């Protein structure tokens, strides 16, 4: 079964906390994803592609410090893969078209998990904490108003008002952007 962004990110974060099993599970799940990523973009032999997969796994392992837990994992992972691929072509003195990260995420099927969430995160970051949290809980994580109120330790009407105000100012902001 194909791993999702949430699953990969959970493994990554447990690995960052020192959980070797989660880290091994992460690398194991990444190997086929990377293999598919490179095969789709390169016409090299199978051996070259598998070498590049291993190179990338090593880089993902040794450069873990550069991953920020608050960001999208698949975006970080495919950026490492893209860098390794460009470096491979550079060594072979061939040129490849530079592919935007968003295009990669769409092509690899991580669009919904990454692109959209990045935009939502950017938008929500502009709201006061309480509004952003209640919107995230109810509209994204799928909690009910009652559950969201319990999570934030505020009243239900406070949750409703916060969501209402938050969505209103988001709408105003997006319409403002378009104008």
């Amino acid at each position: 079964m194909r791993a999702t962004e949430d699953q990969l990110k959970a493994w990554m974060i447990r690995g960052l906390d020192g959980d070797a099993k989660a880290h091994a599970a992460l690398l194991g799940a990444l190997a086929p994803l990377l293999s598919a990523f490179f095969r789709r973009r390169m016409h090299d032999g199978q051996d070259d592609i598998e070498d590049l997969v291993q190179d990338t796994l090593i880089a993902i392992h040794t450069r873990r410090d550069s991953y920020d837990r608050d960001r999208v994992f698949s975006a970080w992972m495919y950026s490492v893969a893209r860098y390794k691929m460009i470096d491979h072509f550079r060594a072979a003195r061939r040129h490849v078209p530079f592919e935007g990260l968003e295009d990669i995420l769409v092509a690899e099927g991580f669009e919904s998990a990454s692109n959209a969430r990045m935009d939502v995160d950017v938008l929500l970051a502009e709201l006061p904490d309480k509004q952003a949290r209640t919107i995230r809980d109810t509209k994204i994580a799928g909690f009910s108003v009652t559950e969201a109120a319990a999570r934030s330790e505020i009243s239900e009407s406070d949750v409703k008002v916060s969501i209402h105000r938050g969505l209103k100012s988001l709408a105003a902001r997006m319409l403002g952007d378009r104008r």
Partner: protein
Amino acid sequence: MTHDDLISALARDVRPVPRHAAGRRIALALVLGGAVTLALVVFGLGVRPDLALAVRGSMFWMKGGYTAAFAACGLILLLQLARPDAERIRWTALVLAPIAVMAVLSGVEMARMPASGWHALWMGPMWLYCPLLVLSLSAPIFAGLVWAFRRLAPSRLPAAGAAAGLLAGAVAATLYCLFCQQVSPVYIITRYTLGMALATGLGALLGPRLLRW
């Protein structure tokens, strides 16, 4: 070696990584490299003899503030460029702010003196002395940042090298203020800016060689 062999070998070495690990590594590099540069300034060049008096004047702090502002810009850019998914670099234009402020101060200074004195103000004897000292003093800090990047993943190597050079040059210039007695805004905007620009340019050239992974 099969993938499974590689993965189990890698999984044998899973040290915990704290939050903001990239920032911590860069901060450590700045402290260590900065300590070397500080020692070079104090024991190599010597602290300006009138330091106790100078710290009471505003010009000393204005000069330090100018270079420290560039250090802040360099740090903001470097933290972004340490990640492989640095697509859109933000806050680049921030470097223009200190330059604009210092340009206004330089204009005021020039307006207050006869035009015949301008040439000496801009060039002066040994006008390259200060920029080259700043460039040399930035080397230990730049080396520290290159070390910090061994665990980070820049994908835009010339830009990452330039940001590291800017940060190293600006920190070096700030420490160099302990030695240099010049306070003229024109002197600062020419010599100090040139010194930091040289460090930035050299960083951009060295980036692809030193930061490759």
